């Protein structure tokens, strides 16, 4: 993916070069070159109750070159910084995977690769995002386009007018970078936005033209929504005051997806400001729904050990402390069952579109 813009040395590039300076200056003073990298873990995030956001703390970890455990990571960090600055100079945007391939080679006189798999380079990129306080789009790195949108909204994308009400049932594929310079929201007449966890349910709703009937935008990120999807939802929410409703499976992972949309993620807590939608609501699937909507027990799935452990973790998160949420999670644990959105098809193929969501919205049956 290539974008053309004209710049001298960008501020991001300057920050990247700063890493080389750390190495050079430390070497000069016979010191072990060390980078300070903010910790991306639960231990370094706090929940800002007033803002309703997960915020990153100030704890940092040191990444030193002359430490056996860190040497390779250190070297990898410098390599990735080099690749990223190359992108800046050439003004190219690329994918995580291409960064991996660009920086991968066998180290001279050895059998060792700089990177063995992409899961080694991805975290290094995130490390740099956090350490240099830059956004991924500023680093010119995109993720996959993993999201779809349909509904009464018109975008300007590279000068093209994209009317999401005229794209059939497939909708528009959400780009991974949706910052205003890249994606313009020209017009939005929807009343609300429904963020659906699974592509299958999004397809159902799109096919049934649910969005037309309820004048809403349907958005999905196919599982844990990628940044582009979250950022776009956030922009539509902020710029067009669209209420955001989240529809996920009834299991701990569904709850967490909702919480990420709402308060931000632990891993990318530094981006909560831009991504989180503290007013987002959880429409379902709730652990109260099986009873209320008379889903037979046999379409439930027994919670496994991991589910139970994860649910118990959620119970401890600061942002799940509201009594309604504690009740919601405990009810799931007590039932010992989880339910997929797809299970609604047990009643009728169009149950989601025709019965479930209409009733939910009518009854304002959601959790905050």
């Amino acid at each position, binding site marked *: 993916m290539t974008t053309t813009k004209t710049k001298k040395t960008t501020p991001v590039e300057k920050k*990247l*070069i700063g*890493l*080389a300076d750390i*190495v*050079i200056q430390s*070497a*000069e003073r*016979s*010191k*072990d*070159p060390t980078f300070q990298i903010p910790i991306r873990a639960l231990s370094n995030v706090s929940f800002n109750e007033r803002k309703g956001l997960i915020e990153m703390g100030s704890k940092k970890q040191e990444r030193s*070159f*002359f430490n*056996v455990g860190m*040497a*390779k990571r*250190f*070297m990898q960090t*410098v*390599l990735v*910084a*080099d690749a990223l*600055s*190359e992108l800046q100079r050439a003004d190219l945007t690329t994918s995580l995977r291409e960064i991996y391939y660009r920086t991968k*080679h*066998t*180290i*001279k*006189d*050895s*059998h*060792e*690769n*700089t990177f*063995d*798999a992409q899961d080694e380079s991805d975290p290094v990129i995130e490390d740099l995002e956090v350490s240099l306080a830059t956004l991924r789009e500023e680093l010119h790195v995109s993720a996959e386009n993993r999201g779809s949108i349909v509904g009464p909204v018109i975008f300007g994308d590279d000068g093209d007018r994209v009317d999401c009400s005229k794209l059939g049932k497939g909708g528009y594929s959400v780009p991974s970078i949706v910052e205003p310079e890249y994606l313009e929201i020209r017009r939005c007449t929807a009343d609300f936005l429904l963020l659906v966890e699974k592509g299958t349910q999004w397809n159902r709703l799109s096919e049934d033209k649910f969005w037309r009937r309820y004048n809403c935008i349907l958005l999905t990120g196919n599982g844990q929504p990628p940044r582009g999807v979250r950022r776009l939802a956030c922009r539509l929410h902020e710029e067009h005051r669209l209420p955001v409703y989240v529809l996920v499976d009834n299991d701990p992972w569904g709850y967490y997806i909702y919480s990420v949309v709402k308060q931000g993620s632990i891993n990318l807590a530094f981006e909560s400001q831009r991504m989180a939608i503290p007013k987002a609501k959880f429409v379902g699937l709730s652990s109260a729904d099986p009873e209320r909507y008379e889903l037979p027990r046999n379409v439930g799935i027994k919670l496994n050990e991991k589910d139970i452990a994860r649910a118990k973790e959620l119970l401890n998160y600061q942002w799940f402390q509201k009594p309604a949420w504690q009740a919601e999670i405990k009810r799931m644990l007590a039932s010992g069952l989880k339910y997929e959105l797809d299970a609604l098809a047990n009643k009728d193929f169009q149950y989601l579109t025709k019965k479930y969501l209409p009733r939910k919205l009518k009854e304002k049956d959601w959790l905050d």
Partner: protein
Amino acid sequence: MGKKKDSASDTEDTESKSSAPRATPEPVAKRPAAVKPAERVTAVEMGARQREISVSEFFTKNRHLLGFDNPRKALLTCVKEAVDNALDACEEAGILPDVTVKLEVVSNGGPVAPSQANRFRVTVTDNGPGIVRQQIPRIFAKLLYGSKFHRLRMSRGQQGIGISAAGMYGQLTTGKPVRIISRIGPKAAAHFFEVQIDTKKNEPLVHENKQIDWEQPRGTQVTLEVEGKYQKGRASVDEWLEQTSIANPHVKLIYGTPEGETKEYPRTYHELPPQPREIKPHPYGIEFGMLLKMLQDTKSHTLSGFLAADFCRVSPQLADEICKAAKVSPEAKPRELKGPVAETLYKTLQETKIMAPPTNCISPIGEKAILAGLYKQIKGEFYTAVSRPPAVYRGNPFIIEAGLAYGNRPQDQNKPQQPAMPKAEGEHEEEDSELARVIRYANRVPLLYQQSACSTFKAVLSTSWRNYGLTQSRGAIPGGPMVIFVHMASVWVPFTSESKEAIADYDEIQKEITLALRECGRRLGLFIRRRERAASEFRRRNIFELYIEEVVEACNRLKGGTLPKQKLKEQLQKIATSRTGGQKTDEALGKTGTGPEGLPHSIIVTADGVEGETALATQVESSQGVVASPVEPDLLGKPSPSDKPASKGKTTKSSRAKHPPKKTTAQSDQARLFSGDSKTTKKSSGKPARSAKTAVSRKSK
């Protein structure tokens, strides 16, 4: 054989065979070291006294006991008997052995591949003392005719039944006679013989006897034509010769394979093993039947005289005490001691506190020689050897020796890695899971069969090799590229059965083996740990050195290619060295050229050279380079035609100084009895059971 039958001990005979009782040494009817030929004549006379039975019948019946169970093993046994004899003869005569073994396919038609052939010609040539002409027929064509059987003295001869059995086997399977060339010195003529056994009379039939021209100034050549099967691998002739060469680095061995290749095992240790000495039996080492026989055979006229003269460690005073305790008159005539009185005497002997037998009768291989042997034959990076002090089981002195060869030679390690293929995602380096190999010896002769029944093997299994940095599953052989060497030297090696393939596990023997293995293991552990520590520091530094290059290049690109790269690299390298143990790592890695500490009798091979017993290693290597070893005349003094003991005055530190080589050739020419040779049962049976009938039959008139 025949002899057994003429004795009064028929019952014992059967018993001894069926239940494989422990055998013990023949008592040495201690005769003053008389003139050799006279003794041989004695044996000949004895042979004449023997009752005639069908030798071939006996042979066929007892094939398996003699190592001729199947064609493959039979081929090995033939080689073994001939080589053992060659080595025994050379060593006894004080000559550094040069032995040539040649295997040829015999086909009665077109060419046959060695692996397909079923008939072989085995030729073994030595540079030993030779055999006097008159003796040749009987040695090679009369079963149970030899010089070693009657001595309580360490020798290879304990193995197998002898060269005449091999000749017999050849005769039965191919009909071909044994061919011999022998010459006792440059001034003597070389004699050529073709002999066969008269299987009815057990007497030699001489087919051919002439003087010939022979290029060798001295020595013996035996040629046998036998049915056999040649197959490489475990328990093959090749393996046996290789292992022989490891435990006998003083031997130069040339092996012409059936494929027509010539393999050379050069002499890498230029000293003869010290001459073992003969000893008299120790009272603890005999069984009741043996005592009875000794009472019959003795030349003493009184009981106390007999005890003092025919046993070691029994003084006249102690002899009197024993008689007193056993309530027999010291003046009693030994021959008249029978029944319960003799039994009481036997018990008393076992209960009396008697000093352990002298142990200088054993000639260990020695740590240096083991090291040389292992270093020569096995490519490794660490070698060590341990000779235990002499110990005693059941009145028999013995010495346990152990050694290890571990690892892969650095140059070999690197070879397969050379094409440095970049690894793709998901690819990893493979690890191999090879197990250690145990090589076992009794009196320098490799034991190739029945490993798991052998005391040495059991000791290897029960040693906790994990303590020494190796992998080992429960009750298994340790893992890793390693050869474990165990040798038992004794005047009497207790085998588990008559086929003499596994050493019985007496507690005392087991203990000594374990101690030797532990010491080897301890040194290996030290070596492995030291190398690992150094390697991990080195790896750390290596990592940094590898990454420095990458980091410097990346920084340079980040800085737009304007960086003084070399300067940054040097600065970073300096930091790396100062943070990873600096000089110390170099030392531990042996890069500074100083040798290892705390590792006696060990050789360490690194990519940069050899440490430890470097002189030895160099000597081994130089020997390997040279075909005709130039060092030999040095040790032999001037290469002289006489078979003077080689060691005189030449070897300084060697224990040989303490045992001046004694030229004991033939003590007494004796027929060896199959049953009496060396049978052993497990320790459970208490005292070693000497088979009395052997002795009785041998001596009875």
